[in-house]
C-alpha cells in the first residue's frame, strides 16, 4: 500500500512539473509579450516595465525564477493590477468558489443517486423514462444557457431568487443549480446502470430468498456495490464543476476564482492566467490522487500491484 501511494505521489509531482513547464512555455510563446497591446508606451516605459517584471531576462532565467517562486507558493504579480499578486486573487476568489462548488456537489450527488435508484427500481416504467430523459436533457443543456434561463424565470419573472452578486445563501441557489445539473444527470445515469447490473445478480436473489426486506436489499446489497462507478466519476465531476464555474460565476457576477480567471483572459493578464491555471491543475491532480487512494479502499477487487495500464 505504502509503495503504491508513494509511486502515485511521485507521478503526481512529475505531472505537475510537466504541466507547469508546459503552461509557462505556452504563455511565454505568445508573440509580442503582454504589454504590446497597451497603447502608446514609450520605449523607456516599456523597458522599465520589462525590467520590473523581469521580462528582459532570458527565458531560462525567468523559468528558473518562476519555478523557484512556485516552490515558495508565490505565483507572482498581476500584470494588469499593479498592487495585486496572483496569490491575493486566489485568496480572494477561492473561498467563494469552494462554497459554490461544495453546494453544487451537495445538490448533485444525493439527488442524482436518489433519482438513479428510483429509475432502476422502476426499470422501463414511466418514472424510469422521466429520469432518463431529464438526465439526457441535463447532459445536453450547457450550464451557461441553463444559468441564463434560471435568471430569466426565477429572478426576472417571479423574483424568487436574486439574479447576481454574492450575499448569502439565497444567492447560491441559482448558480448552484446551474453547476449541479450536469453532474446530477451523470450521477443519476451511473447509479441507475450500476443498480440494474447489481440487482440482476445472484446474491440479490439469495438475499430475497432469505427474506431480507426490500429496503435493506437496496441499501446494503445493491447500492453499496453499484456506487463504485459513481466514485470514479468524482474526479471528472470536480473538473466539470471547476470549468463550469468560469462561466457560471461570470454570469451571476460572483466574486469567485472562476470569474477572476475569465476576467484575466479578457484582460490578457498572462501571469494571472498562468498562475490560476497552475493552481487549478495542482488542485485537480492532488484531488484525483486522493480519490484514487480512496478508491483502492472502497473496491477490494482492485489489486494494488497491477501493471499500470488503464
Amino acid at each position, binding site marked *: 500500500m505504502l509503495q503504491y501511494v508513494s509511486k502515485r505521489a511521485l507521478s503526481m509531482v*512529475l*505531472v505537475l512539473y*510537466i*504541466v507547469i513547464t508546459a*503552461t509557462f512555455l*505556452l*504563455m511565454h*510563446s*505568445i508573440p509580442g509579450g503582454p504589454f504590446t497591446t497597451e497603447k502608446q508606451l514609450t520605449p523607456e516605459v516599456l523597458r522599465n516595465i520589462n525590467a520590473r517584471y523581469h521580462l528582459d531576462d532570458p527565458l531560462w532565467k525567468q523559468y528558473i525564477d518562476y519555478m523557484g517562486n512556485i516552490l515558495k507558493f508565490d505565483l507572482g504579480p498581476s500584470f494588469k493590477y499593479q498592487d495585486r499578486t496572483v496569490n491575493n486573487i486566489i485568496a480572494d476568489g477561492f473561498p467563494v468558489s469552494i462554497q459554490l462548488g461544495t453546494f453544487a456537489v451537495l445538490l448533485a450527488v444525493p439527488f442524482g443517486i436518489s433519482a438513479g435508484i428510483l429509475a432502476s427500481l422502476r*426499470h422501463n416504467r414511466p418514472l424510469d423514462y422521466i429520469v432518463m430523459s431529464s438526465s*439526457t*436533457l441535463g*447532459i*445536453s*443543456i*450547457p450550464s*451557461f*444557457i441553463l444559468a*441564463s*434561463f434560471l*435568471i*430569466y424565470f426565477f429572478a*426576472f419573472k417571479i423574483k424568487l431568487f436574486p439574479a447576481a452578486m454574492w450575499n448569502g445563501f439565497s444567492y447560491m441557489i441559482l448558480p448552484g443549480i446551474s453547476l449541479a445539473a450536469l453532474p446530477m444527470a451523470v450521477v443519476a445515469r451511473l447509479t441507475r*446502470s450500476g443498480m*440494474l*447490473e447489481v440487482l440482476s445478480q445472484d446474491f440479490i436473489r439469495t438475499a430475497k430468498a432469505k427474506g431480507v426486506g426490500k429496503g435493506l436489499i437496496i441499501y446494503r446489497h445493491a447500492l453499496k456495490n453499484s456506487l463504485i462507478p459513481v466514485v470514479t466519476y468524482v474526479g471528472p465531476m470536480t*473538473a*466539470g464543476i*471547476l*470549468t463550469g464555474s*468560469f*462561466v457560471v460565476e*461570470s*454570469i451571476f457576477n460572483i466574486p469567485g476564482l472562476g470569474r477572476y480567471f*475569465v476576467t484575466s*483572459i*479578457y484582460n*490578457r493578464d*498572462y501571469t494571472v*492566467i498562468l498562475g490560476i*491555471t497552475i493552481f*487549478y*491543475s495542482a488542485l*485537480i*491532480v492532488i484531488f*484525483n490522487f486522493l480519490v484514487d487512494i480512496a478508491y483502492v479502499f472502497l473496491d477490494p477487487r482492485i489489486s494494488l500491484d497491477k501493471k499500470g*495500464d*488503464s
Partner: protein
Amino acid sequence: MNTELFKRVDFQLDASYDIGRPSTTYWQDVWRRLNKNKLSILGLIIISFVAIAAIAGPFFTAYSYSDQNLQIANQSPSAVHWFGTDNLGRDLLTRVLYGARISLSIGIVASMSTMIIGVLYGGIAGLSGGRVDTIMMRIIDIVWSIPFLLYVILLMVVLQPGLMNIFIALTLVYWMPMARLVRGQILSLRELEYVLAAKLVGASSWRIIIKHLIPNSFGPILITATLTIPEAIFSEAFLSYIGLGVSAPMASWGVLASEGATSLRSYPFQLFFPAAAICITMLSFNFIGDGLRDALDPRMRK
C-alpha cells in the same frame, strides 16, 4: 389410373434457397436496431433538418448576417423577422442559420480530425506494444490529468480567437479519448482467435489491420466520433462565452447566445433562439450517440 398423377413436379433449384431469411450483414443489423430506437431516429431527422437549414437556409433569407440597420434594432419576432433582430438590427434568423454553419462545421471538422489523429496514434501505440506503447500512453495520462477545457482555453489565449484556431485548439486536445479507445480496442482484438487464425494462414500484418482490426473497432470509433460533435459544439459555445470565440461579424451559436444573454431582461428572445438551437442539436447528437451505442453492442443493452 393415369400417368398424369405421377408426373414429376416442376422442381426449381432456386426456390430451395428462398427458405429462411436473407442473411443480414453486421451493419444492416445495426441499422435495423438503430431504426427501432425512436429517439435516435428523431435525432437523425432533427440533425438532417438542421444541416439542410444550415446549408440552404441562408440562400432563402432576404438579409445578410452582417447588415446593420439601427432603425430596426431589437425588434421582437414578427412576420418579417421570424426570430426578431439583434441590437444592431441584424436579422436573427439569418444569423442563427449562419451560426449553424459555423457551429456544425466546428463539430464535424473537430470530430473528423480528432478521429484521424486518434486512430493513428492509438493504432500505432496498440500495435507496437511494449515501450513505445507505454511512452505514448504516459503522454496521454499526463495531459489527461487536467480538464480538457482548460487546455482549450490556454491554447485559444495563445493562438488568439478565430475560427481556424478553434479547429486547431479543439483538435489538439480532443483526439486523446479516441486514441485511448482505439489502443484499447487493438490490444484486445489482436489477441482474439480469428487474428491468430489469420496469422496462421499467412496473412500479412497490413491485411490483418485492414481486414480485421479496423472494421472490428469501427463501432466504438463511430460512437466516440459522434459524441465528439456535441462536445466540440459545446466547447466552442463555452469559448465564445468567455470571449475567445469566432470574431465578429461572424457568429457561431455560442457567440449569439452570449450576445443574447447581455440583453436577457429586455429581449429574452435574442438568447432563446440560439440557445434552443444549441440545446436541440446537442440533444439530438446525444440521442444518436446513445442509440448507436445500443445498436452496436446489443449485449450492453439494459
